[in-house]
């Protein structure tokens, strides 16, 4: 059985449980679900197009050479740069990361990409600056980039 069906089953069961407890809240939840789906799906399709473009134009050897295990620390660094400027919503990060991994990128590089793509964002910078100020924003983003580097190295070591 597909794992997706199992998740759907669990999700529907939780919805049922929620409905039994509070109908109004469940209606809100369903509305929120549609909204999330509506926001996420088009972005996902766009990321799939990017994946298709890589499939069509970028060779596996190229990905291996910049993000593969042999690329080592530099590969993690490149992956972090890609993650930092990628304009992905979190749900799109994992399919893209998995795609890169299938095409030869190391776990360390993927970890670097995933963390920076979720935690550092060019699109959210203005809001972070406005709400928390220059010093916080600069420090948080730089520290995130630096710590991700170490965690990516550790993950590369831990995972086979």
């Amino acid at each position, binding site marked *: 059985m597909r*794992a997706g069906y199992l998740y759907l089953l669990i999700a529907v069961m939780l919805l049922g449980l929620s409905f039994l407890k509070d109908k109004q809240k469940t209606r809100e939840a369903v509305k929120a679900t549609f909204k999330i789906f509506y926001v996420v799906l088009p972005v996902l399709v766009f990321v799939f197009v990017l994946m298709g473009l890589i499939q069509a134009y970028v060779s596996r050897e190229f990905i291996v050479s910049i993000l593969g295990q042999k690329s080592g620390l530099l590969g993690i660094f490149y992956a972090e740069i890609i993650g930092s400027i990628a304009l992905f919503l979190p749900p799109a990060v994992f399919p893209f*990361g998995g795609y890169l991994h299938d095409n030869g990128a190391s*776990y360390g590089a993927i970890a670097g990409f995933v963390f920076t793509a979720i935690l550092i964002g060019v699109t959210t910078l203005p809001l972070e600056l406005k*709400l928390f100020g220059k010093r*916080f924003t600069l420090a948080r983003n730089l*520290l995130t980039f630096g710590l991700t580097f170490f965690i990516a190295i550790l993950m590369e070591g831990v995972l086979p």
Partner: protein
Amino acid sequence: MKRMLKNDAFWFLSLSVLIILVVYGFNAGKGVIVAKTVYDTFFEVLDIIVAVSIFIGLFQVWVKPQTIVKLLGKGSGLKGFVLVCTFPILMGGSLFTVFPLLKALREKGARIGAIASFITAWGGKAPLLPLESKFLGWPFALVRIGFVIIFAFVMGFLMDWVGENTEKIKQEKSFLVDL
């Protein structure tokens, strides 16, 4: 707001179609490769995306931002620190939804280390585990979430250290001030 979202969806989808058409126009074979990748991946993840959307929708309704602020405000000191490094892992949403919530926490007296830990822990993204495990495998997903907790702890300490060098936050003794 709704209008903007509508335009966003429209924009992403039409750009996607346009790219496929342009690639197809230059080289039919490559165009088919792109379209096939989109088609295959789309149906590979559709059920998971629906399930994940339901999880996040339920979480949003049952765990209101006010609840989170209250919960995190309750435990000061070590307990608050542990909470702030673990609890946000369960949350969905994007940084756009998390930042305003944290602004409220900050205004209620949370230290900047707590704010930074929260953001980092939020990067754990447990609601997306079905997606992550599907594309990167369970070992990667679980090891990553384990590291997120360590990441969040270290981040909090470092950011507090950064903060102490400029801001006068000495009067705040607890990690998160009681609300």
